[in-house]
């Protein structure tokens, strides 16, 4: 492997040994290390920039009209009205007037894609956040208090049974069924996803808790007389942060995809609502003939989800100390020691 040869060659000979330097503070060195890894991994950095940029943009799309509305007519970030700005230019390809073209009733596609950004993004953050809270709490209980023939053990078994039941129905089908029950609508779809989204987190957190519990330092803490609450707070939760942050980041993207899939096949929302999946569904009727509407909305989804996946995928490498070592080697061979 080339990396090995390079690392071996650099050891001690080409790089003058540096005096060991005390890091200024733990937080500062963590930031510095993260930055250097981000620099060495351009795709992760790109994901980081995109996620930050999209989130800020979504906030601006919502906040700018709200704030300017206090002092006069609200100023919108989108150039045309995304819901009622009908023009006579139907199904236009991209042009300087309409950056992404227009749809079948003459609405500007760029404005619609931009107006949908806060909707889809907040749904992604909120539903996976809710799943994280509910599923994470259940997973923690099921993983930590799992000794058989105790109250906790019984609770743990019950939680796992329920999780298995929910996991054995494909989320998409279950959510669709719930949408059918609650009525086909925007709020109903969000509710359906909230009901169906937590089981993955139970599995994830329980698995992690089980492996953390097996670590020698937990036994040491228990021997030192730390209470269960203290162990959970000081040791378990802290070690959970890393895998959960990685999973959550990628999960925001997954929620956006599944939400838009339900709005695509469930055809749940009024076609005027600027939401990416709904728009792809509406525009699919004109698809191979006039590809711009479908392509631009698909692109919006793909870029957003890709941003979260790139960031989450890279975060795993950064947060996991074992692969961090490998990455540092790959990034800058001179810094290996």
């Amino acid at each position: 492997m080339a990396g090995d040869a390079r690392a071996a060659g650099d050891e001690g000979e080409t790089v003058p040994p540096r005096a060991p330097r005390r890091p200024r503070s733990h937080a500062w060195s963590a930031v510095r290390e993260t930055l250097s890894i981000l620099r060495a991994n351009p795709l992760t950095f790109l994901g980081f920039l995109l996620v930050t940029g999209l989130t800020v943009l979504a906030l601006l799309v919502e906040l700018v009209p709200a704030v300017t509305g206090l002092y006069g007519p609200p100023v919108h970030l989108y150039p045309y009205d995304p819901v009622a700005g009908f023009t006579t230019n139907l199904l236009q390809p991209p042009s300087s007037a309409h950056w992404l073209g227009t749809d079948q009733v003459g609405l500007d596609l760029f404005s619609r894609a931009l107006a949908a950004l806060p909707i889809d993004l907040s749904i992604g953050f909120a539903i996976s956040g809710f799943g994280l809270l509910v599923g994470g709490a259940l997973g923690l209980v099921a993983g930590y208090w799992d000794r058989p023939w105790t109250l906790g053990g019984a609770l743990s078994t019950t939680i796992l049974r329920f999780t298995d039941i929910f996991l054995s129905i494909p989320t998409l089908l279950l959510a669709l069924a719930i949408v059918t029950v609650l009525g086909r609508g925007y709020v109903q779809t969000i509710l359906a996803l909230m009901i169906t989204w937590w089981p993955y987190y139970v599995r994830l957190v329980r698995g992690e808790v089980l492996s953390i519990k097996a670590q020698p330092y937990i036994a040491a803490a228990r021997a030192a007389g730390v209470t269960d609450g203290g162990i959970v707070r000081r040791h378990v939760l802290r070690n959970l942060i890393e895998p959960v942050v990685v999973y959550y980041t990628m999960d925001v993207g997954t929620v956006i995809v599944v939400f838009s899939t339900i709005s695509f096949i469930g055809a749940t929302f009024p076609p005027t609502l600027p939401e990416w999946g709904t728009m792809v569904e509406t525009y699919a009727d004109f698809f191979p003939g006039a590809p711009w509407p479908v392509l631009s909305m698909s692109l919006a989804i793909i870029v957003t989800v890709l941003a979260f996946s790139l960031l989450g995928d890279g975060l795993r490498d950064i947060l996991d100390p074992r692969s961090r070592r490998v990455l540092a080697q790959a990034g800058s061979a001179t810094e290996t020691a």
Partner: protein
Amino acid sequence: MGRSPSDLLIFIGKRLALLVPTLIGVLAITFVLSIVAAPDPCQLWFPKIKPAQVPGCVSRFGLDQPIPIRFIDYLAQLAAGNWGTTPAGVPVLPQIAQYAPETIELVLTALILMVVVGIPLGVIAANHSGRLADHLVRIFYLSGWAMPTYVGALLLALLLGPAIGLPYQGDFSNPNPPIPQPTHFSVIDGLLSGQPYYFGDALAHLALPAFALAFLNLGIATRMTRSSMLETLPMDYVKTARMKGLSEFWVLYKHALRNSLITTTTVLGVTGGQLLASTVVIEEIFNWPGIGEYAFSALRQNYFAPIYGTVIVFAVGVVLANLVADVMYGVLDPRVEWR
């Protein structure tokens, strides 16, 4: 507790026994949901029904019974091997036996594609970690990951399909007279028909939907392989293998990959459910006559027995996929004990 074959059998038996309460739970949820969704289904089932006929319909389908009684009744019927009928009287089980193999065929083909393409990609990415090949592989699998199933399927079906001349609707191009389908695995049926044309036709029809399913879910296999290879490659035994002068291929795919596959296999099994869920969308867009199509039409028409039947199939599929993954996990990792 151990690794003898009898331990394995007990392990499998325990897991299969757990399947029963899981199925009852899944069915209970579905039962309540379906009844809440359509409390008075007679109007939905028979749009031309006269108001005077409604009580007859209600009592004929036992809709006037309390829900727990109906549920226990359904379970008893099911235990006796009767999966119920559609309101028009079409039995559900033969229909499921017809649709399910098509889905299994699609999922298995996609799984094979995922393993054959996804795992080597992960090895390559890990071996070139942080360099160009790694980035390219990452972009490839993440673009499949980030693409909603329906978008990917639409693009493949309507742009790529016509462009390279592959069919993208159904499992056969309407053979006339229709060929017999004893197994309902379209490729096997094509082979059994004895005519090379139908075999090729079945393969061609399978190609695009299976590729779509595989491409959109490839990320899981590649990502897991890559990250566990990243952990395996710096290990001493890999260095030893290199020092012994083994070829790079042998070191990577025989020594390092075997350890890394442990994680990958588990994840592949656990995502079996996800694959089944994507199939629903894929089948809808590619008009593939599988269980997802069947589930959809049942959902749309509020036909209770077919909905419950497909839910059973999905739940059994997910549980079996998990079980296979756990067994594989133990087979690959000699430290695992069956319990």
